[in-house]
């Protein structure tokens, strides 16, 4: 018991210490570029990831079951913290460019990292909600962080309003779940529901309440992860958010949210699979249609990434219905890496004064910055699902899982899978609009010849994510997983 208590604290101490230090530095630092807060944040996140590798093992429980470590939770911890780490490295110089105070921004990210680790390690409803809020509230703050920009204010406000709705629904659903089962502990909830369903009990009021809870929680998390038709807010938020915050929100936070959804659906709500699987398939189908077709008209790259997020959300939901933790972790890793790579590409191809915003801003850059453009193209190939990239491997993994003889997919499930894959030709169209701008003569005006600074950290992240994506695409599994 003693070792366990210490293990948990030890594993998370870098994050806690880092947060405290940044709080102090933030109060004292006059502003401008500072290396210390960057170093502290990176060490904190990396330290937590490393320590949790050595201190936390599947099967550990803490605080009477409030925290429960499983193999899946460890995988998701690494994914979430890894993506956050890459986002931190990426943001180093960018924050100064958009006039964001470094220590405070990084402090918020560290708080969110705490949520990433707990999203998959939660053992009861209270911890789950804390993790949920730890992921959400920092996201709102990050979205609107550069408050001098009116679009960031708008993005932050929209995200906040929607997030509050989502939290309220989640809380409501949790209350119903508690009412139906009488316990907060996730394992016990599952046990209770199994008992009721095994007694043939679609009749009991408890199950009806549990199903209502399921729907509320599902809707809440679908809002959070921006699956269609709950996705209308995403493009506006993405458009207004600065690229560094977007790296955290769109990469790490999104992965953690999906992890949370999977945890809920595979864990306590597992016995209700017959109810939530068709719901997820329907949502996946709608996401494939709406996400793809609404992206066609976009000319702003951040909005394009938002709709691509909707499309990928559809695939991830199908992966969740396949109940393969391995596939889900792989998909989240590949999607997160691709998002970070795309943002790194946008940063690398931007200028000191302005970000890359529309397709026109990229025109002709393939010739002037071939290295950045080439790696950015690799990232886009992954998004489009071209073989030899992680994006293809992930989507193919979803297809393989769906068509397995024992997958339990209904006609709706097959329809969702087929629609998602076939509609990726529309995805190809809009991702390759970016490729076209970079490499092909568009007949328009080329992006203005400005002095472009090649920042090493943007390039490093871009190349790292591109190489990781191709590597994952070739070996077709997460390293270290069987």
């Amino acid at each position, binding site marked *: 018991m003693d070792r366990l208590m210490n293990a948990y604290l030890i594993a998370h101490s870098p994050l806690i210490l880092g947060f405290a230090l940044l709080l102090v530095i933030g109060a004292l630092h006059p502003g401008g570029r500072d290396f210390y807060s960057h170093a502290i944040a990176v060490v904190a996140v990396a330290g937590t990831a490393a320590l949790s590798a050595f201190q936390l093992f599947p099967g550990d429980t803490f605080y009477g079951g409030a925290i429960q470590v499983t193999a899946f939770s460890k995988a998701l911890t690494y994914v979430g913290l890894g993506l956050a780490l890459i986002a931190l490295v990426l943001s180093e110089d960018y924050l100064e460019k958009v006039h964001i105070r470094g220590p405070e921004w990084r402090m918020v990210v560290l708080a969110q990292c705490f949520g990433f680790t707990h999203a998959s390690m939660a053992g009861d409803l209270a911890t789950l909600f804390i993790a949920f809020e730890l992921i959400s509230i920092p996201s709102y703050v990050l979205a609107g962080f550069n408050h001098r920009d009116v679009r960031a204010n708008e993005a932050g406000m929209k995200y906040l309003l929607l997030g509050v709705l989502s939290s309220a629904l989640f809380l409501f659903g949790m209350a119903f779940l508690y009412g139906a089962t009488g316990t907060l502990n996730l394992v016990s909830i599952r046990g209770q529901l199994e008992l009721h369903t095994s007694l043939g009990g679609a009749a009991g009021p408890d199950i009806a309440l549990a199903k209502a809870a399921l729907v509320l929680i599902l809707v809440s998390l679908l809002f959070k992860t921006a699956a269609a038709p709950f996705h209308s807010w995403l493009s506006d938020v993405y458009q207004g958010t600065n690229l560094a915050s977007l790296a955290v929100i769109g990469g790490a936070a999104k992965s953690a949210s999906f992890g949370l959804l999977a945890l809920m659906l595979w864990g306590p709500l597992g016995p209700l699979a017959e109810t939530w699987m068709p719901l997820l398939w329907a949502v996946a189908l709608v996401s494939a249609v709406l996400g793809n077709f609404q992206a066609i008209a976009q000319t702003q790259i951040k909005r394009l990434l938002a709709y691509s997020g909707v499309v990928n959300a559809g695939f991830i939901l199908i992966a969740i219905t396949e109940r393969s933790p391995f596939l889900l972790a792989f998909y989240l890793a590949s999607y997160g890496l691709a998002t970070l790579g795309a943002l790194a590409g946008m940063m690398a191809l931007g200028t000191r004064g302005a970000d890359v915003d529309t397709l026109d801003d990229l025109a002709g850059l393939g010739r002037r910055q071939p290295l950045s453009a080439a790696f950015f193209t690799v990232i886009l190939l992954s998004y489009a699902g071209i073989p030899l990239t992680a994006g293809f491997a992930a989507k193919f993994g979803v297809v393989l899982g769906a068509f397995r003889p024992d997958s339990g997919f209904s006609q709706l499930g097959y329809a969702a899978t087929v629609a998602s894959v076939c509609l990726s030709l529309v995805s*190809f169209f809009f991702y390759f609009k970016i490729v076209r701008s970079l490499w092909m003569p568009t007949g328009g005006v080329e992006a203005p010849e400005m002095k472009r600074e090649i920042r090493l950290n943007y390039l490093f992240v871009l190349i790292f994510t591109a190489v990781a994506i191709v590597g994952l695409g070739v070996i077709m599994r997460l390293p270290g997983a069987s």
Partner: protein
Amino acid sequence: MVLTSDLLPLLALLPLAWSVFHFFGPRDEATAGTMALAVSLLFGALAVYLGTTAMGVAEGLTWTGPTLALGLGGFDVPLRLYLDGRNAPFILLLGLAVPFVLALARPAPGSLSGKSRSFFGCAAALTAGLAGVFISDTLLLFYLCWEASLLAVYFWIGIHGKPAPRTGEVYGVLMRFVLLTLAGSLPMLLGLGAVMAFRQGDPGISGLAAAVGGMSPTAQGWVFFAFLLGFAVKLPFLGLHGWLRDTYAVAPAACRALLSAAMSKMGAYGLILVLAPAFPDQIERYAAALQLWCVAAVLYGALICLAQERLVDLLAYSSLSHLGLLALGVFAGVRSGDAATTGLTGAVFQAFNHGLIMALLFVLDARALKGGESPALGTLTGLRASHRRLAALLLTGIFASASLPGFSNFVGEILVYFAAFQASPWLVLLAGAGALIGAAALVRAFHGLFFGKPGSPAAAVSFAPDLARWEAAAALALILLWVALGLYPMPFLGPVEKSLLMLNPRGWTG
């Protein structure tokens, strides 16, 4: 000791390395062009050597590579390549067509405006992808090379394409091509995934028939249509051919020639060697509809030819017509009893012939006018006076494409007719009529462009110089090959037929 089969991966790896070399290599157009030609000749030699060797060996050549652990599916995927009498014709086609096209349809000096790296890089990448498609025995590798070829063409046309009359801008045409191809290959991916998921492994092209055989008839039906769709868009089949004319019109000349010669053969390869062995039941069930579809393509292509003015459009539709005939050979061949391998052997031979003929015709078409423009009926006449070699070779090529006896095309076509006759004499009548009309349209166009008084009644057209002696000699060598195979085809057809018979896994001979 290096076995010949160890050289198999080189067929794909050599063009891949060549492509990488170009993307990072010399910017200078002349150097790049010379390197491209040299490596393509090397590739051609390798392909011809391996192809002829494979045809000589009874079981063919196989190569097994490292195993991929497809963790996501939970199973292992061994990388395998194969080359025997079935797919050797495709490799031989590639080995002959690529150097020929790069030599004769090379871009005019100075026309690439500093983008020569992408031009030759894409050509090399396309070659690598095509070689991979034709020799890979692993389904996953097959799909990878399929998509890689598409990407290579996307960049090639996207960067180097030029708008043509009545096509609109290049990117729109390109997207139509790419999206329509994806509309076929994504269902094919689903079909592949379904088979692999069912079998919990990658059966490979050689094991596909057995794997599919274990699936339920409904599942088989869906997978059949998925594969059919993928190959139908590539060939293309009638109705899925909307991209054909405009894509050929905007593509650079070398790209256009390779598209018609080699890329459409991906569809043919799929039909003959992937679809037919694995789904004979479905082909038999839908035989009538499929065969009529092919005959409709032959007739439609031929009739539309009559309405075309530009030689390149004419050739595009003539290509559609001939490929319809090829597909007819496949669908008439399966489960047709004695004539089983006749139709399929004929289809394989037609793939080889059609590819080379189209390579020659498209290349010659691009050599008439400056800038690779295609001559159009009504804008000029009497080209023969200034382009004697071009005229002679083009006319011979047109006669070969019209299946004049003595040319190899005749042998292939007659085999297809034999198989179709077993199904129904009406098919032969209609298909034959279509082929006749197509040939007539081509001859009429030739007459209109090359005979008569030299001159251009419309706006002045600038001519390109006639073919050089070595270029004419290369084309003549190709023509002599057709004559040789036309008079004595058995050295070619024998190994093909033997391999197809050995393949007979689910009784496609009925």
